[in-house]
């Protein structure tokens, strides 16, 4: 089961504003499926930026650079993940190995979708994100950061600690690796009771059992 508590990993700076979900996962890959299910979308992450028209990796794109190989944390600009509701965007990130995205602000749906897929989005003020990116880029041997969801702190490459805020319910869900379906099924009796009442009140809203 997925969960998220403490993540120590390499960070990569992709400091563009308005990175939309179509850039994260171009729409022509939406219908690709593979034996890996959702994780399979990782191979198409930022496809138009990572690869040239011939499908060869562009050496200058940050995630292709050897020093960022295996990055698990992504630093991004304002309005990260704007655009459509496609959940393929967090799948692609996660499939690629990114578990945490830090940006000054996020597209609302993308932000929500990240949580659902155990990718942690953290909003920090623009100056702080800029500072982190600068440290990572300077890369004096250390591009590693620690994101501690228990303490709600980030340890920057220079060792300084930065606090962040997160909705408590979401934090708990990530920490415990709570599967939303499993959670809801715990309430099954309550749901069934609700339904019995509702069916009496709105019989027109229901359809005959199929099969």
């Amino acid at each position: 089961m997925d969960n998220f508590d403490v993540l120590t990993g390499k960070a990569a700076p992709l400091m563009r504003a308005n990175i939309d979900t179509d850039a994260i996962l171009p729409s022509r890959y939406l219908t690709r499926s593979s034996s890996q299910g959702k994780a399979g979308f990782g191979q198409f992450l930022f496809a138009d930026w990572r690869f040239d028209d011939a499908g060869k990796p562009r050496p200058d794109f940050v995630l292709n650079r050897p020093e960022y190989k295996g990055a698990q944390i992504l630093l991004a600009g304002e309005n990260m993940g704007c655009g459509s509701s496609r959940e393929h965007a967090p799948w692609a990130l996660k499939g690629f190995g990114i578990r945490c995205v830090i940006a000054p602000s996020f597209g609302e749906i993308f932000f929500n979708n990240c949580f659902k897929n155990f990718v942690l989005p953290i909003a920090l003020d623009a100056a702080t994100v800029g500072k982190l990116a600068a440290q990572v880029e300077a890369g004096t041997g250390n591009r590693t950061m620690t994101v501690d969801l228990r303490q709600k702190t980030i340890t920057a490459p220079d060792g300084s600690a930065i606090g962040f805020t997160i909705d408590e319910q979401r934090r708990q869900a990530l920490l415990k690796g709570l599967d939303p379906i499993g959670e809801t099924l715990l309430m099954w009796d309550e749901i069934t009771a609700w339904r019995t009442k509702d069916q009496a009140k709105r019989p027109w809203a229901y359809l005959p059992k199929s099969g």
Partner: protein
Amino acid sequence: MALSLFEKIWREHVIRDLGNGYALLHIDRNVNHDLVGSLVFEPLDKLKRRMPFPELNFATMDHGIDTDPGRGDETKIPGGKDGVQGLRRKSKEYGVHLFDLGDVRQGIVHVITPELGIALPGLTLVCGDSHTTTVGGMGALCWGAGVTEIEHVLATQTLLVEKPKALRILFEGRVAKGVTPKDMILYAIGQLGAKAGNGYCVEFAGEAIRALPVEGRLTVCNMAIEMAARFGMVAADDTTFEYIAGRPFAPKGALFDQGVRYWRTLPSDPGAAFDREVTLDAGKIEPQITWGTSPQDVIGVSGRVPDPAKAPNAEQRGYLERALKYAGLAPGAPIDGTPIDVAFIGSCTNSRLSDLRRAAQILKGRKVAKGVTAWCVPGSGQVKRDAEAEGIDRVFRDAGFEWREPGCSMCVALGGDKFGPGQRSISSTNRNFENRQGVGVRTHLASPEMVAAAAVTGRITDVRKLAV
């Protein structure tokens, strides 16, 4: 207590209030499509769990399929076939109602749910597509859910939802002749901006909305998401009830009467509170056309595209410059008369019978201009069949339009349907984003009649000059 339409439906569906503005809601209907494919069934497979209420779940093929006559599972996109066949296999396995290729009921999700009586006033309905707002035009609470959410619905028929704030947009007065529901919603987005609805459920109301047939209300609600509202709705009334009566999945007989009695209680009470309320003068609206790369980049057809030099600040100037560059338009130029290459009538915004009828009135006795490629993609098999029964397909074909099979087609350009780079398209769809209709395609959104007018003149044209 005076309650809004939204508030009434919301409250009726709360199974448990989870605090922090979240509630577990009952989901009355869910519709899957081929893009979601078989992925959403993964958790059920893993849990080895039966779907508790398959009869409330539906599926259709629309996004990835192509719209060529004689099409099959072999879509033009890599992996598209897997989506089609995966959805078919899983729908059968779990007992979901499937409207497959070749079935007259197949079509664009948001076209078929009202058409088949799947969507009813007062219901909650979700689908893994953000334009599910469309169906709010039935007087229901309908929204686009993410894949993980759809998985949750399939497994539990419930969803954890954050309660939105309430916004009411009143269209007061009446629209002028030649002004359509598409113009109303484009105008509203132009006035309020593409972010105005963020965090809100929008109720569209007022005299000009009440005067609309159901199909027009669906068009208005379709683009609520283009002002960033996750939910859009119009209160149901006699017009809606008449529309519903006799549709295949709608309640019949005494159950229908009971439904009507209930539905009559739903419209917003006088004095109901909204977090925000906006009034627009419907009489001021003229046929609209977008010029840029967001639906908010919209003007009346007699207007001029903006001039970045006159922008109030650098940020705005940069935005306008970028949009104009992509659109290939000169600052301050009149939009009327701009030559076009392709004309598209289709999508869940404007591909219903009434849309095709109105476009056909413009096309009758006219020919698509030389050099213009024109397509019509009816929204569903039923729309196509009805249009053919009325001879509308002949009008389109005689004018020089391609008459295609139902699907999303050029709305999203996924199904292998695509226009060429740099081509200028006038389209009855809902998004004019960069590359939406193919790499480099410049999209102008407008009503189906405006598309028809441009198709025959070869230029963006005020449809009122051609109307009889």
